[in-house]
């Protein structure tokens, strides 16, 4: 049986499979399965049973999210599916691989998702810099339309779907689902107040599901090979496979599809090749820039949503950023703070004013002008920027590496102040 449903067709030494090649690799089988007699309720149940959790970062159960969309006679006729392909989380490079490597998988998954919530229109919200993915997706959509997998009355089901590739024009905040909807509507991408949640009132006020690229790419396998097969993939408690990536100073950085639940050590050593010669692992962010630092003592923890959460971090995007012992942790956190300060949408005060203040303090520390008082202010901001204090998750995301870093790297912060310079700079 297939053990790598997300990447089985991906070979980056050639272009993506065309539709004929994709079909011969079980491609679009799920739509034929649906056309043989599954209704949207059946598909929703299968996705719920699969235990699939969102792969964009939050890890919310996909079936549950979909179940909030109004259905039945009283429901609005127009609903939307939006794919969040605005990959911009620092250190995250997985959706690019899926879209450049196997665009038909995303399209097949989108038809399943749109059929389930009965959305006749779908947008792929793609970051503007992903020009290779844009071309691959547009080409694949045209192929799928020509074969009747998109358009009117797909495979005789009576279900219609059009997919539009929307290329964005920058800004990390567009990855926040309500900010994304505003951007798609042609507005400044400030997040919206919730409730109402997009499932009820989203794009142009209509029920809308926003799912990450990788989440959608899980769907064809679940329908084609079944829930039991899907449950057999994992090595841990969460279901399915996931793209895991490693960047930083390991021997062989990269991105691989692996079962959930593998020990972190195995991924770093077997796949990442271990640390580069002469370097030790100091710490790592397990799933992009918005996660809490983890330490070598955590290497035997399983890469599962719940297991990583137990030690106070988040699996999030599953793309690890490795900090080695010769790279300054204060500089690394400072880089992240500069990013978050720059990418704040400016709507709420803690984020708009707090992050630039934090960024400024890191610049002062770097320049050897930091003081104990500055450290105090940084500690206070972990709270001011934290969950519940801000309008969306951007600033709490910044507070994760900041708060954990202040604790773990206390001595490094102190040395920047006492030595009046960065001790890692020779």
């Amino acid at each position, binding site marked *: 049986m297939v053990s790598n449903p997300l990447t089985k067709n991906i070979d980056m030494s050639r272009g993506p499979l065309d539709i004929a090649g994709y079909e011969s690799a079980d491609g679009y089988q799920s739509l034929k399965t649906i056309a043989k007699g599954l209704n949207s309720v059946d598909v929703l149940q299968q996705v719920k049973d699969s235990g699939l959790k969102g792969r964009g970062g939050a890890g919310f159960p996909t079936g549950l999210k979909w179940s909030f969309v109004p259905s039945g006679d009283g429901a609005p006729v127009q609903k939307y599916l939006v794919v969040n392909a605005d990959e911009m989380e620092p*250190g*995250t490079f997985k959706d690019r691989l899926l879209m450049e490597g196997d665009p038909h998988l995303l399209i097949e998954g989108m038809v399943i998702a749109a059929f389930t919530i009965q959305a006749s229109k779908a947008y792929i919200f793609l970051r503007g810099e992903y020009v290779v993915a844009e071309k691959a997706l547009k080409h694949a959509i045209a192929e799928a339309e020509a074969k009747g997998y998109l358009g009117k009355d797909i495979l005789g089901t009576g279900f219609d779907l059009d997919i539009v590739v929307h290329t964005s*024009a920058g*800004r990390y905040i567009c990855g926040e689902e309500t900010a994304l909807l505003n951007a798609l509507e042609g507005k400044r991408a400030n997040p919206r107040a919730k409730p109402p949640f997009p499932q009820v009132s989203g794009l142009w006020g209509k029920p809308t599901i926003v799912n990450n690229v990788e989440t959608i790419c899980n769907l064809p396998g679940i329908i084609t090979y079944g829930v039991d097969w899907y449950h057999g993939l994992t090595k841990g408690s969460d279901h399915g496979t996931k793209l895991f990536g490693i960047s*930083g100073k390991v021997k062989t950085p990269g991105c691989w599809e692996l079962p959930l639940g593998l020990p972190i050590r195995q991924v770093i050593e077997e796949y990442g090749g271990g640390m580069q010669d002469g370097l030790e692992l100091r710490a790592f962010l397990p799933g992009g820039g918005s996660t809490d630092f983890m330490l070598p003592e955590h290497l035997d923890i399983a890469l599962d949503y719940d297991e990583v959460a137990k030690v106070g971090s988040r699996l999030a995007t599953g793309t690890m*950023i490795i900090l080695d012992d010769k790279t300054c942790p204060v500089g690394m956190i400072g880089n992240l703070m500069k990013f978050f300060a720059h990418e704040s949408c400016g709507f709420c005060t803690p984020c708009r004013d707090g992050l630039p203040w934090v960024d400024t303090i890191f610049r002062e520390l770097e320049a050897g002008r930091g003081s104990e008082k500055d450290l105090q202010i940084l500690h206070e901001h972990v709270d001011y920027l934290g969950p519940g204090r801000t309008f969306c998750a951007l600033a709490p995301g910044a507070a994760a590496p900041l708060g954990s870093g202040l604790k773990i790297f206390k001595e490094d912060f102190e040395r920047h102040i006492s030595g009046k310079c960065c001790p890692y700079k020779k």
Partner: protein
Amino acid sequence: MTSEVIASTSSKARQLNAEEIAEIEHEMTLYPDKKAVGLEALKIVQKHQGWVSDESLLGIAKYLDLPAADLEGVATFFNLVFRQPVGDNVILFCDSVSCWIMGCENMKSHIKDTLGIDYGETTEDGKFTLIPVPCLGDCDRAPVMMVGEELHRNLTPDSIDEIVKNVRSK
């Protein structure tokens, strides 16, 4: 309000050209209202003109019947909409965390030393503009940057020289 701002708001809208209009009309078929097309139109005009001048912005606002201030709010929000002239080739330089760990600051210094430009600046010959960009999503091959639509990976000072030479010789 400065005299410059007053001058810009009172300046005349540019008549969009036929190609721009055709592409904007195509976008109108993909979205249910004109507001959503505003950002698309900004990108279309930028593709043809290199950047979005005040005259172009007013031209789009007029064509789509959108408030110019709203459109300006959108234009200045998104970092890939250029409201100032840029060089023939925009360098989108990734300075996010993985690239930082892998030494992007040295690459940036090399660009500064060899091209003589910092962020937001354009070379005197108008060939290159340097702009920082959030994580480009190719972190296993850091440091990376885009020049125009081309992504360049595993940057070294030598590879940057080579990229610059190739672009200049085009």
